[in-house]
C-alpha cells in the first residue's frame, strides 16, 4: 500500500510542472481586514492614478508587483464595507506594506464562502451553501464545531442529547436519507477530512455547509449527509500577534427526575405498598452527582510577513461531568506555515495538529445513573464493615460503589500532518497538490478493585482490561484550476484526482482472578482467567480505499447568469468487483435578477438571486469486505475430545454491492434589501435516495444467512428552509441584528424492493425497549416515514388497573388479550419542523447574544416513565408520578408494558444560549497597556430554559437512526452551563 501511495504521489508531482522566475521590482503588499480585525477576502485593491490593481485572497492578503518607486494612495473596496485609502511609499526594489482596515457597512453580501475545492463569493454561488463566520457563532463554550452553528443554519439540526463531557453533538441535515449507510457528514478542515472535534472552537474562523446535492456532488460518495467545511483562523502576516481566549464554567444537571424519598417509602409502606424499609435515608442521585467545573484556555500566536507567515495555537480544555469522576481533557497544538515565493507563483503550506485526549474510562455512567434512580432510598451507601451495601436484587448494584471501585484511563493521540503546494505558471492557471496523513491511536485501561461488585458479588477477584487501537488515513489530492475571463464571459475550470486509504487496527485484552487489586490494569499477566480461557483476547484489522476523479466548471456571464457543472467519478474498494466505480454529476444555475434593469429600478433591492440545481451524491456501506466470499474462524467444536475452531462462511457475499445514490433537486432564492438590512434565503428541495443499502431478509437456503446487504429501496425527503436576518439598529452605538430560520422536512420510504429482491412484507421493526419489556419500539414501512412508533395504543385503564388498548378493529380490549397484530402507529420520533431565533445586540462596549431554537411536531417515548411509573414494581424505586391516577382513574396495576401512554409530544422551544459581553474601549486599552488591541469579558449560559410539555428530563433526545425519539432510561442527563470568559489580543 505504501509504495503504491508514493507511486501515485510521484506521478502526480510529474504532472505539475513548476515554473517560477523571480522578478526585481517594487511591491506593495498588505492585508485587508474589517475594523474588527477579521480578514476581508476578495477586496478590490487599486493604486490610485495607476493601472495597478489586485484582488485580495481568501484571507485578505494582496500583493501588487511591478510598482515603480514613488508615493501612492492605495484604495481598498469591498461590498459591505466602506472604502478606505492609505498612503504608502515604495522604494526601488523594495516592498511596502499597506494594511487596510475597512469599516463594516453591511456584511454578508460579498462574503467569500468556502465551497468544495475552492471558494466563491456569496453572490456567485448557484447552490444551497450556508456559511457562518466566527462573529456569528453561538457565543459561549462550544462542545465541538457543530455546536458553534446550532440553530444558525436552516435544515441543519444540531442536538446535544447527552451531558457526557466526552459526547459530541448530533447532526442531521435535511432528514433521514439512508437506512444502512453512514449517517455522519463529511467534515473537511481546510480541505482535509477530519471530524467535528478535530479543531478547538477558538481556532475556527468559519464553517460552510454544502447542503444540497449540486454543491456537495464534487465530494461524491462521502457527501450525502452534507459537507461541513471548516476554515481555521490564520495569521495574515506583518505584525506579530498573541491572543488568549479562555473561560471557566460550572454545570448542573438540567432536570432531576422526581423519585420517591425514604420518607415517601415509609409513608407508602404504612399504606400497604410492598416496599422494604431498610432503616436508612439516602439520596442516591445526590450521592453520585456533583456541580462540575470546566475550563478552556486557548493561546494563539501569529507572525511573519506576506511571504512567509505562521500561526500556532495551544488549547487546553478540561471538562468535568456531572457524575463523580466523569471528565474529559483535551490538549491540542496546531501549527500552520504558509510560504509564498516567486511573486506568488508558488505557494506552499505545511500544517500539523497534535491532539491528546484523556478521560476517566470509569463505569458505564448510564448504568450507574439507573442504579441511583432505582435504588431503595431507605438503604445505605456503606455497610457496617465498610464495604458497599449491596443487595441481591436482580440487576441492582450500589451506584456509589460502581463509581468508586472502578479505575481507568483513556489516552487518545491524534497527529495530522499535511502539506500542500500551489504553483501558478501563468496568471489564469494553478495546480495544487495536497498530501498527508492523519494518525490516531489510543490506549485505555480499566480495572475494578476487590470491593467492586465484580468481586463482591460475582467472585471475579478483580477485573482488568486494556484496549488499544490505531487508525491511519492517508490522502493525496491534486487539482488544476484554470480561470479566465473573455469579455463578458468568466470561466473557471477545475480538475482533480483524489486518493485516500484507511487502515484500522485494534487490540484488546482482559483478565480477572487476580491475586491483588493493587496493580489495576498495569499487570494483566498476574490474573489467571485469561490462561484458563475465560477472559478474552482479540485483535482486528480492516481497511479500505477511496479513489476519485473530479472536475468542475463555473461559468459566469456578467455576474448575471451563473452556471456550475461538476462530475466526480469515484471508486470504493468496499463494493463488488464490477461495481466499484460510480459517477456523481451535478448541475446548477443562478440568475441574479438584481443585475437586471427591471429590478435595478427598485433601489431597495440590493441583491436578488434565483438558483436551482441538481446533484447526485453517494453513500457507501460502513463495513469492508461485504462483497467477498470468505470464511472466518468462529465457534469451537468438540472433535475427538478436543475443541477445534470451526470455520464458517463470514457472510452472505453480495458481489453486486454498489453505491447508494442520493439525487437532489434544490431551488432557492437569495435576497438582500433595504440597504442590505434585510437578508435571507428560501430553499425548496427534494432528495431521493436510490439503490438504498438495506440489510435485506433472504431465504435460508439458498442463502447462508438470513440477511444480505443489498441495494434495494428508495427513500424520499421533501423540505423547505427559510432564513431571514434583519439589522434593526445599525447605529454607531447601538446595533441589533435579529435573525430567524425555519425548516420543514417530510420523509417517506418509497420502496424496499428491486428486481432481485422482492420482499413479501413492506415493513420491518427497529429499536427496542430492552428487558424486561422486550418489545420493539418502531416500525419502518414502505409508504410511511422513518421513525414511526409502533405498539399497543392504550386508551383507558380498567378498575383493576389493567390497560385498555385498541385492537386492530379499534375495539377496546384488555391488554392481556392484545396480540402483536393489534399494534399500530403511535407517533413519530423525528421532528417535522425546526426553528431558531438569534439576536445579537451591541450597545457601545456591551454585547448581548441570545439564541433560541426549537423542534416541533414529533413524539418521544419516555423510557423513564415507562419503566419507573409503575407502582407494581416495588423492588425498585419509582417516580413520584407512579402513584398518580392513569387516565384520571387509578394507578397502573399491570406489568411494565410498552403502550402509547408513555409516548408524549416532544415539541420544545429552548433558550439555548445567552451571552453578555463587555469589550474594553480603545481609551481604556491604551490606558492599560498600549499593546493590547482587543479585550473582551463575557458571561454565558447554555441550555437555560426549555418550554415544553414533555415530562422527561429534556426533550432534546436523539432523533437519528431508525428508532428516533427515544429518551433512554440510561441517558446521561443533559446539563445547564454557566461560564465566565475572556479574550485578549495583543
Amino acid at each position, binding site marked *: 500500500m505504501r509504495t*503504491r501511495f508514493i*507511486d501515485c504521489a510521484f*506521478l*502526480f508531482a510529474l*504532472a505539475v*510542472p513548476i*515554473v517560477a522566475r523571480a522578478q526585481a521590482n517594487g511591491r506593495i503588499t498588505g492585508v485587508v481586514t474589517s475594523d474588527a480585525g477579521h480578514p476581508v477576502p476578495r477586496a478590490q485593491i487599486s493604486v490610485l492614478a495607476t493601472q495597478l490593481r489586485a484582488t485580495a485572497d481568501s484571507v485578505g492578503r494582496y500583493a501588487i508587483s511591478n510598482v515603480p518607486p514613488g508615493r501612492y494612495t492605495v484604495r481598498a473596496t469591498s461590498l459591505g464595507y466602506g472604502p478606505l485609502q492609505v498612503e504608502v511609499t515604495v522604494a526601488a526594489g523594495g516592498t511596502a506594506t499597506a494594511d487596510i482596515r475597512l469599516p463594516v457597512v453591511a456584511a454578508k453580501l460579498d462574503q467569500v464562502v468556502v465551497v468544495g475545492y475552492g471558494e466563491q463569493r456569496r453572490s456567485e454561488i448557484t447552490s444551497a451553501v450556508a456559511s457562518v463566520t466566527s462573529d456569528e457563532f453561538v457565543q459561549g463554550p462550544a462542545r465541538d464545531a457543530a455546536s458553534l452553528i446550532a440553530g444558525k443554519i436552516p435544515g441543519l439540526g444540531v442536538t446535544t442529547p447527552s451531558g457526557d463531557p466526552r459526547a459530541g453533538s448530533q447532526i442531521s441535515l435535511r432528514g433521514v436519507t439512508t437506512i444502512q449507510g453512514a449517517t455522519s457528514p463529511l467534515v473537511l478542515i481546510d480541505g482535509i477530512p477530519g471530524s467535528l472535534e478535530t479543531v478547538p472552537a477558538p481556532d475556527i474562523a468559519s464553517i460552510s455547509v454544502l447542503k444540497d446535492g449540486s454543491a456537495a456532488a464534487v465530494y461524491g460518495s462521502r457527501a450525502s449527509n452534507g459537507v461541513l467545511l471548516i476554515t481555521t483562523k490564520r495569521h495574515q502576516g506583518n505584525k506579530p500577534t498573541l491572543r488568549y481566549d479562555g473561560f471557566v464554567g460550572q454545570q448542573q444537571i438540567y432536570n432531576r427526575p422526581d423519585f420517591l424519598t425514604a420518607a415517601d417509602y415509609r409513608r407508602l409502606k404504612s399504606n400497604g405498598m410492598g416496599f422494604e424499609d431498610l432503616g436508612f435515608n439516602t439520596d442516591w442521585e445526590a450521592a453520585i452527582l456533583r456541580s462540575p467545573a470546566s475550563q478552556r484556555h486557548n493561546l494563539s500566536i501569529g507572525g511573519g510577513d506576506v511571504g512567509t507567515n505562521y500561526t500556532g495555537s495551544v488549547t487546553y480544555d478540561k471538562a468535568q461531568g456531572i457524575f463523580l469522576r466523569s471528565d474529559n481533557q483535551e490538549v491540542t497544538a496546531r501549527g500552520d506555515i504558509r510560504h509564498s515565493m516567486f511573486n506568488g507563483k508558488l505557494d506552499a503550506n505545511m500544517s500539523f495538529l497534535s491532539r491528546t485526549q484523556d478521560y476517566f474510562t470509569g463505569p458505564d455512567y448510564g448504568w450507574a445513573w439507573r442504579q441511583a434512580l432505582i435504588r431503595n432510598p431507605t438503604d445505605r451507601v456503606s455497610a457496617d464493615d465498610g464495604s458497599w451495601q449491596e443487595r*441481591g*436484587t*436482580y*440487576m441492582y448494584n450500589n451506584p456509589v460503589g460502581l463509581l468508586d471501585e472502578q479505575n481507568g484511563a483513556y489516552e487518545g493521540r491524534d497527529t495530522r500532518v499535511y502539506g500542500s503546494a500551489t504553483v501558478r*505558471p501563468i496568471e489564469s492557471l494553478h495546480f495544487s497538490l495536497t498530501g498527508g496523513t492523519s494518525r490516531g491511536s489510543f490506549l485505555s485501561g480499566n480495572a475494578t478493585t476487590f470491593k467492586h461488585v465484580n468481586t463482591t*458479588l460475582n467472585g471475579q477477584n478483580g477485573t482488568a482490561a486494556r484496549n488499544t487501537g490505531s487508525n491511519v488515513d492517508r490522502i493525496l489530492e491534486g487539482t*488544476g484550476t484554470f480561470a479566465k475571463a473573455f469579455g463578458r464571459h468568466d470561466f473557471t475550470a477545475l*480538475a482533480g484526482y483524489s486518493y485516500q486509504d484507511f487502515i484500522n487496527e485494534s487490540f484488546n485484552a482482559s483478565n480477572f482472578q487476580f491475586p491483588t487489586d493493587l496493580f489495576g490494569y498495569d499487570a494483566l499477566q498476574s490474573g489467571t482467567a485469561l490462561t*484458563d*480461557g*475465560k477472559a478474552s483476547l482479540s485483535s482486528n*484489522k*480492516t481497511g479500505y*480505499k477511496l479513489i476519485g476523479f473530479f472536475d468542475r466548471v463555473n461559468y459566469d456571464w456578467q455576474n448575471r447568469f451563473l452556471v456550475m457543472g461538476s462530475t466526480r467519478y469515484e*471508486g470504493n*474498494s468496499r*463494493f463488488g*468487483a464490477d461495481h466499484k*466505480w460510480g459517477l456523481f454529476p451535478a448541475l446548477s444555475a443562478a440568475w441574479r435578477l438584481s443585475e437586471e434593469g427591471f429590478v435595478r429600478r427598485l433601489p431597495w433591492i440590493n441583491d436578488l438571486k434565483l438558483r436551482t440545481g441538481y446533484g447526485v451524491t453517494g453513500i457507501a456501506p460502513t463495513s469492508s469486505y461485504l462483497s*467477498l466470499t*470468505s*470464511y*472466518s474462524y*468462529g*465457534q*469451537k*467444536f468438540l*472433535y*475427538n*475430545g478436543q*475443541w*477445534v475452531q*470451526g*470455520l*464458517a*462462511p463470514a457472510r452472505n457475499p453480495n458481489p453486486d454491492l454498489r453505491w447508494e445514490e442520493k439525487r437532489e433537486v434544490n431551488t432557492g432564492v437569495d435576497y438582500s434589501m433595504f440597504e442590505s438590512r434585510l437578508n435571507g434565503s428560501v430553499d425548496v428541495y427534494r432528495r431521493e435516495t436510490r439503490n438504498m443499502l438495506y440489510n435485506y431478509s*433472504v431465504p*435460508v*437456503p*439458498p442463502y*447462508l444467512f*438470513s440477511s444480505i446487504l443489498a441495494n434495494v429501496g428508495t427513500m424520499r425527503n421533501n423540505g423547505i428552509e427559510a432564513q431571514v436576518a434583519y439589522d434593526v439598529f445599525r447605529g454607531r452605538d447601538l446595533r441589533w441584528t435579529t435573525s430567524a430560520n425555519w425548516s420543514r422536512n417530510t420523509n417517506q420510504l418509497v420502496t424496499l424492493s428491486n428486481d432481485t429482491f422482492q*420482499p*413479501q412484507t413492506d415493513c420491518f421493526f427497529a429499536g427496542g425497549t430492552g428487558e*424486561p*419489556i*422486550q*418489545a420493539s419500539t418502531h416500525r419502518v414501512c414502505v409508504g410511511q416515514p422513518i421513525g414511526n412508533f409502533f405498539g399497543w395504543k392504550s386508551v383507558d385503564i380498567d378498575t383493576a388497573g389493567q390497560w385498555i388498548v385498541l385492537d386492530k378493529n379499534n375495539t377496546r380490549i384488555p391488554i392481556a388479550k392484545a396480540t*402483536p*397484530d393489534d399494534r399500530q402507529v403511535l407517533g413519530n420520533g423525528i421532528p417535522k419542523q425546526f426553528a431558531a431565533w438569534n439576536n445579537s445586540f451591541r450597545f457601545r462596549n456591551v454585547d448581548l447574544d441570545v439564541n433560541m431554537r426549537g423542534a416541533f411536531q414529533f413524539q418521544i417515548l419516555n423510557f423513564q416513565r415507562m419503566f419507573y411509573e409503575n407502582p407494581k414494581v*416495588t423492588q425498585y424505586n419509582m417516580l413520584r408520578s407512579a402513584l398518580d391516577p392513569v387516565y384520571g382513574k387509578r394507578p397502573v396495576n399491570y*406489568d411494565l408494558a*410498552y403502550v402509547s401512554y408513555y409516548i408524549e409530544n416532544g415539541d420544545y422551544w429552548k433558550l439555548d444560549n445567552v451571552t453578555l459581553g463587555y469589550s474594553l474601549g480603545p481609551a481604556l486599552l491604551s490606558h492599560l497597556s498600549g499593546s493590547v488591541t482587543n479585550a473582551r469579558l463575557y458571561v454565558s449560559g447554555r441550555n437555560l430554559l426549555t418550554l415544553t410539555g414533555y415530562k422527561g428530563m429534556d426533550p432534546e433526545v436523539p432523533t437519528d437512526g431508525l428508532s428516533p425519539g427515544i429518551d433512554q432510561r440510561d441517558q446521561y442527563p443533559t446539563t445547564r452551563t454557566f461560564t465566565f470568559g475572556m479574550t485578549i489580543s495583543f
Partner: protein
Amino acid sequence: MRQFISKLAVAVVSGAVLLGNASCTDLSETPFTEVTQANFKPTATDLAALIAPAYTPLRSVWMGWYGMLDFQEETADEFITPVRPNGWYDGGVYIRLHEHRWDPSQGEPNQLWSLCYSGINAANRVIYQISSGVIPVDTGTKTSVTAELRAVRAYYYSLLLDNFGNVPIVTDFTSVDVPKQSTRQELYDFVVKEFIDVTPLLSTQTGTPIYGRINQLAAKGLLARVYLNASVYTGTPQLDKVLTLTQDIVGAGKYKLDATYSTPFARTNDQSAEILFAVPYDAINANQSNFHMKTLKPDLRFVFNMQAQPWGGSASNPQFIDTYDRDDGRLTDTWLMGTQRDAQGRGYDFVEAVPSMMKTDFYNGYPVKKYEIYSGETGSSDVDYPVLRYSEVLMMRAEALLRTGQGDAAAALVTQVRQRAFKGAAAAKATVTGADLAKGSVYNYGWEDTDGVVKTAAGGTPVVNGGSDIQFGRFLDELGWEFAIEGHRRTDLIRFGVFTSKKWFNHAPNGTFRTVFAIPITAIQTNANLKQNTGY
C-alpha cells in the same frame, strides 16, 4: 499561450500515466482476518473445522436462549414462565406459548427454523465441497464424513418435521433457487430414507472419539424416535420398526443406564454410560447454555456460590408436581424445592403453588435443578445436553410394546428405568405392571385457579383426576417423570392426544392445528413458495 498549451499537454499526459498506472486506481480488497478462496486451500486436517458449523447450531437449538428446552416445555404441561417481580412479561411471549396463542412471529420456533437451516446449509456445503474435491480427502473419509453430515442433516430435518411439518427440503448447496415446500409426508419419507441410507456407513465408535457426534447407534435411536411419532407425522404407525431399531441398540450392548438418575445431567456427563448422542457445552468453548439462568432465581447465586446472577423466571407447573410419587427420587433430582438459603440467609423458601401466569413471587414454583448447578457457575453452563439417552431407547421400546399389546414386556422395561428412582424402603414402588401402564394419567388436568384448586375454568367447579381418560395415560406420566425438562414433552403430549385437548394451569386448548408451529413470518416473507400451515 504556447507555453500554456505545452504545460497542459504535460498535465494531460501525466494524468493519463496516472490513470494507466493500475496502483492508482486499484480497488481490490483483501480481508486481514478472514480466509478466502484465494488464500486458503483446505486439506484433510481442516476437516474438523469444516464440519463444525453443521453441528454447532445444535447448541443454540437446545439449551440456548429461546431454545427447545424453553418452548418444547412451555407449550406443554410441566413448565411455565410466569411474570416475576423482575419482569418476564416480555411482551407476553411466554404467556402466548403457555396459552397456545403463538403466531408466525413467535421468536422461539422461528429461531429453531433458522438454526436448523443454518446447520442444513453447513452440511450441504461441506458435502458439496467434499464431493467436488474442494476439500481433498481419501475415499474412506469421503464416505464416512458425507454419511455423518447426512445424518446430522436428517436430524435437523427430523426437528423441522416434528415442529413445522411442511418445510422445504434442500440438499444441493450449489442451487440458487428459492426452495419449494414439501409436505410432511415427503419430509418424513426423506428423513427416514436418509437415516436408513447412511446408518451402515456411520462410525461404530463410542466414547470420546465420537462424543458429540452421531454414530451408528445414535442414528438408529434418532430414527426410532421418528418412527415412534410416525402416526402423528403421516397417520401410519411404524411401531414394528421402533422395535427392530431399539432391539439393535439394546443388543449392541454398548450403552447402559447410569447408576443414578442425575449422572447423565452432571457437569461431567460426557462420562455418562447412557448417552448415545449429546450436544457438548463448555463455559469457555461452547458457551450457549444459559437455561439455568432462565430458571434459577437471582439470589440463588449466593446459595450455589455462582459467579453469575441468574435472571430467574421459569418454574414447575404445580399440577405436574402433584403427579409425582413423593418417593420418586426424580422429583428432587429434577426440581429445586423448599428452603434454599445461604449462611447469611439469602435465598428463598420455594413453594409448589403458583398464583397465576400474571403474578408470582420469586419463590412460587420450583426452578429446575436437573442440570447440575455448581459452584462458580457462570452465565453459561458446562453441562452437556443429552439428546438421546439409553433410557429413552428403553422407553421407546416399551411404548411400542405397550401399543402393540405387549403390556407386561413394556412394564418390565419401565420397571428397569424406574429402579434407580426408588431407593431403600421405596424400592418396591419401582415395579409396574402392564395393567398399570394401560391406565389413564394421574395428572389432574384442568384450570389451576389462583386459589390453587384445579377447576373447569377460572372460578369454575373443581376437577378431580382430569387425566383418567387418556389412553396409556400412565405411560405418558412415566415419560413425564423420566424426561421432565428434556424438551420431549410437547412431542409426547401430541402423540398421546393431550396437547390440544386438555387444560392445565392457565392454559386452555386453542385449536388442534397447534400440533405444528406456524411457518416463521420471516420465511414466508422471503420465500413466496411457502404456504402457511393450516390454522395460522
